């Protein structure tokens, strides 16, 4: 399912993070655009953008595990939940500052990832899927029932984040934290993918026994993938907790895990750009659906309590249609468009 990059002429060219000067310029312009956005958009739009940023980080984390290493996890939301609750409990009960809570959330989630990673050394395919599913449900259960720590469905409220005395209590200010971390995660993932480690992970995905024979330590790399992926998930979860200011058990359910897999599939598996586009697409989709279904519900009040069914159905349809018609995801479409224009105006 992975999309290969354009043909390159030398190893050096292949190893470059950004394939062309044009890409660099575009990235700089895009970065400037991202920095200016909060000044142009309203409060709600900035909030949605923040959610997009958190989802991009989460999707990039899952992409390392599922996209590059080929280990399918239906428990990504559980790792995010562990991170979120670590940060929330740390900040609300122990008074941990933001800059300490964030890495701590990542570390705790990574530790959980290492624990889940161990049985995966023997499991494959569907057995692994169900094991991560079991982990997801167990974490959900613990969050819901460990009342003394998590306050069950009343949730935990967090104080606003603070960096060096600077209070980030508006969406606009927190937006910058999220954007910086999202860009950092994207760069990290891109560099990881091009390093020896990243290539080893891809080898594990493509044929694990063959990878072992050519000298890749399977156990090490599988657990590494779990640890890195869940560290990123934990950080994303913590950011989400700070963004919302109040987290409860229903933010990290099985459906969320499915949503994250949908993101990397819709975007394009095993590509950084794909994870980013996929996350944006899947976060913005419900906004579009709400814009349509909101007026529909007010026009037909009988539909109002059932309108939630529409977004669930559309989610499902989007996943099915992408897999049937465009298995390489939005990234695949992007590559096709680029290929089409490359020799333009000549056909060959």
């Amino acid at each position, binding site marked *: 399912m992975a999309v290969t990059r354009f043909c390159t002429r030398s190893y050096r060219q292949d190893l470059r993070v950004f394939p062309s000067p044009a890409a660099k310029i575009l990235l700089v312009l895009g970065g400037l655009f991202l920095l200016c956005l909060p000044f142009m958009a309203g409060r709600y739009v900035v909030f949605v953008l923040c959610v997009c940023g958190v989802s991009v980080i989460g999707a990039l984390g899952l992409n390392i595990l599922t996209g590059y290493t080929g280990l*399918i996890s239906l428990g990504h939301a559980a790792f995010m939940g562990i991170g979120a609750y670590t940060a929330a409990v740390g900040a609300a009960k122990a008074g941990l500052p933001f800059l300490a809570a964030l890495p701590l959330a990542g570390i705790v989630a990574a530790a959980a990832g290492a624990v889940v990673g161990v*049985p995966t050394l023997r499991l494959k395919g569907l057995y692994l899927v169900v*094991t991560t599913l079991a*982990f997801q449900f167990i974490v959900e259960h613990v969050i819901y029932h460990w009342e003394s720590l998590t306050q069950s469905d009343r949730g935990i409220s967090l104080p606003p984040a603070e960096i060096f005395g600077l209070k980030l209590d508006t969406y606009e200010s927190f937006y910058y934290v999220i954007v910086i971390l999202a860009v950092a995660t994207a760069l990290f993932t891109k560099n990881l993918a091009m390093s020896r480690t990243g290539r080893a992970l891809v080898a594990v995905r493509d044929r694990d*026994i063959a990878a072992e024979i050519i000298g890749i330590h399977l156990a090490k790399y599988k657990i590494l993938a779990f640890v890195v992926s869940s560290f990123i998930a934990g950080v994303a979860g913590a950011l989400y907790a700070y963004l919302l200011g109040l987290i409860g058990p229903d933010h990290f359910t099985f459906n969320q895990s499915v949503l994250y*897999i949908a993101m990397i*599939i819709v975007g394009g598996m095993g590509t950084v750009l794909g994870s980013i586009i996929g996350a944006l697409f899947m976060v913005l989709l419900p906004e579009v659906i709400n814009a349509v279904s909101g007026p529909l519900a007010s026009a037909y009040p009988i539909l109002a309590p059932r309108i939630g*069914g529409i977004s669930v*159905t559309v989610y499902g349809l989007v996943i099915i249609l992408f897999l049937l018609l465009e*298995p390489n995801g939005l990234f695949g479409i992007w590559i096709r468009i680029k290929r089409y224009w490359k020799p333009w105006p000549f056909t060959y």
Partner: protein
Amino acid sequence: MGFQIFFQLTITGLAWGSVYACIALGFVLIFKSTDIFNFAQPELMMLGAYMAFTLITMLRLPFVLGFFLALILMALIAAVVEMMVIRPMVGEPVLAVIMVTLGLANVLRGMTGLIWGYEELQLPTPFPSDPIMLFGAAINQAEIYTILATAVLLVIFFLFFKYSQAGISMRAAAEDTKTAFLMGINVKRVFTGSWVIASLVATIAGVFLASFTFLEPIMGHTGLKALPAIILGGLDSIHGAVIGGLIIGVAENLAGFYLEDYLGSGINEITAYVIVLIVMMIRPYGLFGTKEIERV
């Protein structure tokens, strides 16, 4: 007194376990013949129960007639779904296949919410509601009928796979699709057939489950517990699925009662998943699954 409670819990557990076993059976059936792991199976169960509900309460059909009509409708739906969505995915990577069925599950769940709403509905049951006394324990009659019906169903299945032409061709297609093609077996029909049968079993499971609980669009989450059952039994083993389902049904009921004081309420909801984690540590291919040997 202690024994009576234990007995009662075991019977309830067996009834739930029978429902899990039916769903698990559908999973294994589809997996065996098409190598597709159908995450939408619990949703098929839910849809079947809703169909029966509509036919029985809204069209006021007698229970048995409504039930049979629901079976026929579900068979049609399953056949259409298989041809449109699933067939193009045969032979695709595991993740793509899983996600298609998860997407399908979302569509079915969303449609159910849209059509029937999110309130809990009560399926009228044909079973007498007064409990019968067995060894001094009060047992819900619907549970006994569920266990009996599942047992009958399993015998039919066993005979079907062992002796009927269709059953044998299904096993052949599962064993080796290409060779089955060469032997003149209509593999496409086998694929559709396995979905149809899986949807029938799912509908039966759904109606029984609804007769001792109620209908709601998140019923599928209960059905998901059939997954640990299959993994426990081993993905490709039909009797494993049944035994796995029963073990999980009984274990979660017993755990819900005896361990509640130590581990908090609601422990029964995750017992299945804890069991499957432990089994996976010890036997990564389930209790009765075939151990795969890989060559490069």
